[in-house]
Every structure is written in C-alpha cells, then in structure tokens.
C-alpha cells in the first residue's frame, strides 16, 4: 500500500491505510506500507518491518490544505526500488493523483494497481495543464475505488475512469464499546458540544459554529464547547481547545459529547468524523454537503440519522443544535449507531478484498500470492 501522507500526523487517509492494513493482516494477507516520514505513535498498529519510509516530507499547499508530501528524483528512485523489491502481487495506491509518492508509485508500478480516490475536488486547472502526464498514469490503474459518490463523480468526470464506491472503514467496536464515564466533571446536566477538525482551515467551517454560539447560548447558557484539532486560533470564552488528540482521546471525547457539530463548508469527500460520531451514538448536526447527507441516510428529514442545515448558515446551525439538545432522540442515535456498523472494517475490508481479487484476475497472471504492497 502506498500512502502519500506521513504517519507523523493524524489524518483521514492515514487512518484509512492503517485500518485496512490491520484488517488485511487479520485476514491472512501481508500488507506492506510505503509512506513518507516516520511511524508516529498513531501508527503503532503497523509492524516496523512491513513499513518503508519514502524519506522526509515537505509541507506544500495543495487542494486547500497544507499537505506534507514528497517528490523529486530521490523519492522517485526510492519508490521504484521499493516496488521492485519483488514482494508484492498487487499495489494499492491511495490518492494516486496528488504530487507525491502515490503518483510516483503509479508511474513505476509493474504490478496490478488498485487505486483509492479520497478527495472530491481535484484542482481542475492544474489537472488540465498536466493532463497528458496524468492521463498516462491514470491508464495504469486496473481497478479504481472511490470513498463516496462525490469522489466517484470526480473520477468519472475529470479522469474519464470508473471507480467502485467503497466507503471509509472504521473500527466500530472501538467507538461503540466506549462506556461514558461522565460522573466526574462536568455534571451531566451541562450539555457538551464538540467540534473535531482542523481549526486553522476555513473550509472546516469552525467560523460558522463560532458565529452560531451566541445564539445557542441564549437558549442554553450552560453549554460547554470543546474543539479538538490541529492548528491554533483565538476562541471565545467558554470554549476549550484540546489541540491534536490521539485516537483514544477522540473516542473518549465522542463518548462524552451530547452533540457533534460538523459545519464543514466544502471539499469534504466522505465525513469520517460523522461516521465516528454515529458509531459512538452521538447526536449529529451537520452541514448539508452531499457526502454528509449520503452518510446520514434518508433524504427525508424525519428519517435522517442526524440534523442537517444549509452550508454556512449559522442561524440554522444554532436552531438545529438547540433542537437536538432540547429534544433528545435516543431512537435516532441508536439507528445511526446501527447504520455505522456496516462501515466496520470487517465489512468494508471484504469488499476491498473482492476488488483485489477482481484486479488480479483482470491483470496479467503472475506468480502465487505472497502479499499486497
């Protein structure tokens, strides 16, 4: 497996790669992972001998966030050497069209290639400029996977390829099994609102939430607000910032929350935070981005697994939060939790394996199975 982002920092793609690697090993396969940087504490699940580093990565602005990636002839040589080490029957490349080791791996791969597209919005201008180069690389993909319908639309429209939609996986029981221990501080009657996501990135929509806070506080003056995520920014009084949290701390935070707000403005392709909240049984208030609405199921409001509001509308957000806090709906939370069970790696991973098998049968016959890179 090739992951373009470093495991030094937590992130959606990294978590996906780690979760899938763990599932593959449990089901008797041997995944090897290539990624920039070193193994951080969040990647403890990964065996050191199965991990190869593509070298130090550099922070570059890409697709509206700062991505730590690497490129250049040295990285290209490393990637090629890794691929030629002869251990792999199949290469699974994540985010294959970012300027990173993923694209380099796609160029150099001689094995059958499965590629997973995680983002919903590539930059069309740079894509057009580089279309000749990209086109040739994209042709090498034997089987494409997209994490959501929105991500698939990009693949079909901009890249002219097809992709099977396989959602992100989670370790369902980690989230569902966490028993809330909220008898200490704060007292249970003090409702707790949480936001998880980068604080310094406008598209994550924290500004919308902050604009809505005064309105919410009018109805619920005792509201406790906790934000968790990378980056720093001034917060109004009454908000606690936990900074970057570990997976364990995130699970605990979700377990203690009364409502999760996902005010993201754009460029979300899946909404892993939403899924994790669903698995934890936390009520959700989310903006109506297509992938969020898809995750929350039914288009009809009354059957939906969480509240949604118009993107960027802080008044609607405030109303939805107050509604959720005033009229808790345990049945809905239970339905959401039940729905999240389908996204456990035991389910999602089997589908990925089916794609692997299909890609292997579609690609030229090679030697007997040894492992997936």
């Amino acid at each position: 497996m090739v992951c373009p982002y470093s495991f030094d920092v937590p992130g959606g793609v990294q978590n996906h790669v780690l979760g899938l690697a763990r599932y593959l090993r449990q089901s008797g396969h041997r995944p090897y992972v290539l990624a920039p940087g070193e193994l951080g504490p969040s990647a403890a699940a990964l065996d050191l001998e199965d991990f190869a580093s593509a070298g130090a990565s550099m922070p570059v602005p890409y697709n509206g966030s700062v991505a730590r990636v690497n490129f250049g002839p040295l990285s290209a040589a490393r990637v090629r050497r890794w691929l030629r080490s002869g251990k792999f029957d199949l290469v699974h490349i994540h985010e294959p069209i970012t300027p990173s080791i993923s694209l380099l791996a796609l160029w150099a791969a001689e094995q059958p290639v499965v590629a997973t597209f995680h983002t919903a919005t590539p930059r069309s201008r740079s894509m057009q400029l580089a279309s000749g180069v990209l086109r040739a690389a994209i042709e090498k993909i034997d089987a494409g996977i997209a994490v959501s319908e929105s991500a698939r639309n990009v693949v079909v429209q901009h890249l002219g390829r097809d992709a099977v939609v396989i959602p992100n996986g989670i370790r369902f029981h980690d989230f569902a099994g966490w028993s809330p221990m909220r008898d200490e501080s704060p007292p249970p009657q003090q409702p707790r609102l949480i936001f998880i996501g980068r604080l310094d990135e406008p598209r994550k929509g924290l500004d919308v939430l902050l604009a809505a806070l005064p309105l919410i506080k009018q109805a619920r003056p005792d509201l406790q607000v906790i934000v968790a995520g990378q980056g720093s920014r001034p917060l109004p009084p009454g908000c606690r910032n936990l900074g970057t949290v570990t997976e364990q701390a995130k699970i605990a935070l979700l377990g203690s929350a009364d409502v999760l707000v996902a005010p993201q403005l754009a460029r979300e392709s899946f909404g892993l935070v939403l899924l994790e909240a669903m698995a934890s049984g936390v009520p959700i208030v989310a903006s109506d981005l297509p992938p969020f609405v898809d995750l929350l199921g039914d288009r009809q409001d009354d059957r939906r697994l969480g509240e949604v509001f118009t993107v960027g509308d802080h008044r609607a957000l405030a109303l939805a939060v107050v509604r959720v806090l005033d009229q808790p709906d345990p049945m809905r939370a239970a339905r959401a939790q039940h729905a999240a069970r389908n996204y456990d790696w035991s389910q999602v991973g089997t589908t990925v394996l089916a794609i692997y098998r299909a890609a292997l049968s579609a690609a030229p016959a090679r030697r007997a199975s040894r492992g997936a890179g």
Partner: protein
Amino acid sequence: MSILEIAAILIIIVTILVWRITWLAGRLHRATRRTEHTWSALDTALVGRARHAAELVKMPGIDPATALLVLDAAAVALEPDLCQVDRERAESDLSHVLDMIDPMLPISPNGLGPERGRASLCRRLHNDAVATALFLRRRSTVRILRLAGRTAEPRPFEMEDGSICALTVIMREAEN
C-alpha cells in the same frame, strides 16, 4: 545556420517524435492487453454465475416450474459461440430471472449473491478498461500511424446486472 546544425536539430526532433510514438504505442499495448484480461475474467464470472444458477435449482424446495425457468435462462447464457449482442441479451435475461427467484433462495453460502456480485464487478472493470483502450485508439496519432494494427476494436459488454449491486452483495457475503 550550417547544415550540421540543421541536421542536429532534425535528429533531435525525430528522436522526440519516435520516443513519443513508442510511448503511445506502449500505452496502447498495455490498454489492449488489459481488455483481453478483463474480458476473460468477465467471461469466467458470467459462466460461473450461470453454472451456479443451474446447480441451485436442484436444491430441495424449489418448484419444477421455477427450476425450468432458471435452467432455460442459464442454458441460453451458457451456449457456446454466441455473438456478443446475443450473449448480452441472454445474460440480461438471466439477471431478470435471477431477480425474480431471488426471494426464494437461501442467502449465502448457497445463494447466488457472490457470483452475481463478482460478475457485476468484473463487468465494470472490463468496460472501464475498454473505455481507456478506445480513448487511445481514437487519438489521431494512433489512427494515422495505425498503431493499433489489426487487433479488433474492443467493445464494452452491455447487460443488466439485475437489482443487486455488487457492493451490497459482497457485503452480504461478508456477513455469512
């Protein structure tokens, strides 16, 4: 400009042209080869589906009228030497029949779920590979220089998969 310089420039241009054409031919070759492999994978998956359907109706609890219906659809789909249009129609018919009898069948391991899912997945991969090959074949360089040679133009396999989408089926396979 001396003759030597012009010659040098010409050589460089020709080298670049030859390199680009070789590169394109390589891509075309790879894409064409992939369509052959995806086709044989799809063929195997479709045959597996039809055979399994025919096996399934021998199970106790299936009435003879239903059995006859399924056997007939499977037999037509399994007929050798069908042209592609006929085969597409036969496989679509089989999908419809399987949709109708699906509620009567036990869920995996003896149900048809995995076979249908696999066929549908293989078909998507095949049509995706065909689209890539066709895109390359229609480039003007490929057409003018006849880089595709005499290989037959690949065609997508158009059939109806039936009501069960690949993902849910494979998910269901996982549950059992």
